[in-house]
């Protein structure tokens, strides 16, 4: 206990000195008991910033995010379907600043000194911290699929980070004639949004069917032999878009090994596949800054204490959301939101020198197969022997024999989920 308070005192002293040196707007020495810097303003980071302020208003929170607006990847498949605008997926950070007192800085963190506890940004600023929350999301393993790099993505969009990429894929679909072939290269586990590629196939089919291109085909080449909510997806595809969508598992030569971006060609071990529209969702790893800060393991993800989300590699640095390996939880927006709250409560306790509280987590992933046809998977998680595990006898997927009314309700609730979670994060 004595050691901890001395350390806190030194940290506070360091933090105050740094604040004084750097002249933070509004930084008033002594007003805050500690400073937490949050890097990344997506589902995880923005939630952490808000809930840290809710947990303890005497914690100063600085959220550093390079983009002025967040664009949600969740529900961006509805943009491909022509059912939603990108603007409806975009959120600003003003309410976090105005209502919750989060200091929002639009800048990019380029280096983290976890020993001295300072984050350095591209514009030359430095931010000292008592604790750091890193929520960088994912980045792609460029060239793991041979020939698929950032420039190839301009021809064969991944659309796995919403924004211009989503619109590019949408334009390609719009330009495709009836009877064309769309390829989706689905990534190996783990990756962001496990049901996403399969929802995408469905909503692309919806667009094609609605616009007189019902003779077109969508072929998913998969690096896996099974996928999330598989039985529900296969049933939903067949009911809504009979014959349009086919899925090729890895064991049947589904794994894409290379691309020719100019030709729009995908190479598997034994096959060459040329599509009119080619969507490559590449293998993934934790966001770049996590790797740069030395927080990742051999697979490219951040190992963490699953109660506090503190990095197992660097003390005082917490990693949440897609970038971390959080036991049984999938990489989803709901997971990131739930983890952020557990992490915020843990940090508030640790700053006070008390035990982090017992956690509880939820994940819910809705997928929309058609505007009135939704499915879901859900789970409640708890900590057991230091690992996040799903509570037995709970959770699971929607019933395979659910009625049309239930499917319609799940599509309605999917959109309501989006409105609620984004209000919980950005509102």
């Amino acid at each position, binding site marked *: 206990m004595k050691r901890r308070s001395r350390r806190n005192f030194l940290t506070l002293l360091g933090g105050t000195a740094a604040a004084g040196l750097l002249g933070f707007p509004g930084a008033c020495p002594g007003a805050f008991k500690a400073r937490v810097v949050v890097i990344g303003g997506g589902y995880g980071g923005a939630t952490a910033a808000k*809930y840290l302020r809710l947990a303890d208003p005497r914690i100063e929170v600085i959220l550093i995010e390079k983009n002025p607006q967040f664009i949600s990847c969740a529900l961006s498949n509805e943009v491909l379907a022509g059912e939603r605008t990108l603007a409806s997926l975009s959120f600003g950070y003003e309410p976090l600043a105005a209502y919750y007192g989060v200091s929002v800085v639009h800048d990019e963190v380029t280096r983290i000194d976890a020993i001295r506890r300072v984050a350095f940004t591209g514009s030359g600023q430095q931010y000292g911290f008592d604790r750091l929350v890193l929520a960088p999301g994912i980045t792609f393993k460029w060239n793991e699929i041979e020939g698929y790099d950032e420039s190839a993505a301009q021809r064969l969009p991944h659309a796995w980070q919403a924004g211009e990429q989503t619109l590019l894929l949408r334009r390609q679909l719009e330009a495709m004639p009836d009877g064309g072939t769309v390829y989706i290269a689905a990534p190996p586990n783990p990756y962001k949004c496990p049901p996403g590629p399969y929802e995408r196939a469905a909503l692309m089919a919806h667009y094609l069917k609605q616009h007189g291109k019902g003779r077109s085909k969508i072929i998913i080449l998969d690096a896996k032999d099974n996928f999330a909510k598989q039985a529900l997806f296969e049933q939903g595809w067949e009911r809504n878009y009979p014959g349009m969508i086919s899925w090729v598992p890895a064991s049947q030569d589904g794994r894409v090994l290379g691309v020719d971006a100019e030709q729009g060609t995908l190479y598997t071990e034994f096959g060459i596949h040329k599509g009119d529209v080619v969507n490559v969702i590449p293998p993934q790893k934790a966001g770049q800054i996590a790797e740069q800060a030395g927080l990742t393991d051999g697979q490219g993800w951040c190992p963490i204490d699953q109660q506090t989300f503190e990095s197992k590699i660097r003390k005082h640095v917490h990693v949440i959301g897609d970038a971390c390996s959080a036991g049984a939880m999938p990489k989803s927006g*709901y997971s990131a*939101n*739930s983890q952020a*709250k*557990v992490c915020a*409560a843990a940090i508030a306790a640790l700053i006070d020198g008390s035990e982090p*509280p*017992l*956690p*509880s*987590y*939820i994940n*819910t992933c809705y997928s929309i197969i058609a505007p009135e046809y939704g499915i*879901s998977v*859900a*789970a*409640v998680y*708890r900590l057991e022997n230091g690992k996040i595990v799903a*509570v037995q*006898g*709970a*959770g*699971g997927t*929607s019933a395979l024999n*659910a*009625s049309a*009314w*239930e499917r319609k*309700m*799940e599509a*309605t*609730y999917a959109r*309501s*989920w989006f*409105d*609620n*979670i984004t*209000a*919980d994060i950005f*509102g």
Partner: protein
Amino acid sequence: MTSHRLLSLILTLGLFNLAAVCAQPSHRMLGDACAGCHGTRGHSASPMPIIAGLPEAYLKQTLRDFKSGKRPSTIMGRLASGYDDAEIDALASFFASQVWISPPQELDPKLVKRGKRIHRDGCSACHKDNGRFQDDKVPRLAGQWRGYLEILLEEYRLSERRMPDLFMTIAVSQLDEDDLKALASFYASQR
């Protein structure tokens, strides 16, 4: 190690173990996880129902009914099953202790007027004070989302849903689809 320190160590470990046996996440920890769908502290966006400030006993029973399957659901049964009785009670207590806020809603005044008549003639004996009244069995309806009330009333009409409250099922069976829309709009119009 002195005997004094040994004693305090034993006491500390003993208490710690006791805490570990009875340990349950805090009300807030449990409740905050629900916000992804039900909004921050239960103040949800339409059509997920607002649950902030509903009666504790009503919430306890509803969660138990979701868990047992007595009340049908799309997803709540799967989620409620993730909690034991003590955790369900904690969740109910957390949301019951929040303050109800009626959100502004765009409504058709004609439907509201028609709904008011139906309420007066058929519903006001239980849903007193224009739906503001609530007790262990009766949830507040005044200011609830129109979208949610429409879904709920439709559930009472659909035979496939097998809603647990027989009285409500019978009451709703007397009404047609437009009546239900009117009723939903009326309660949504109340503050």
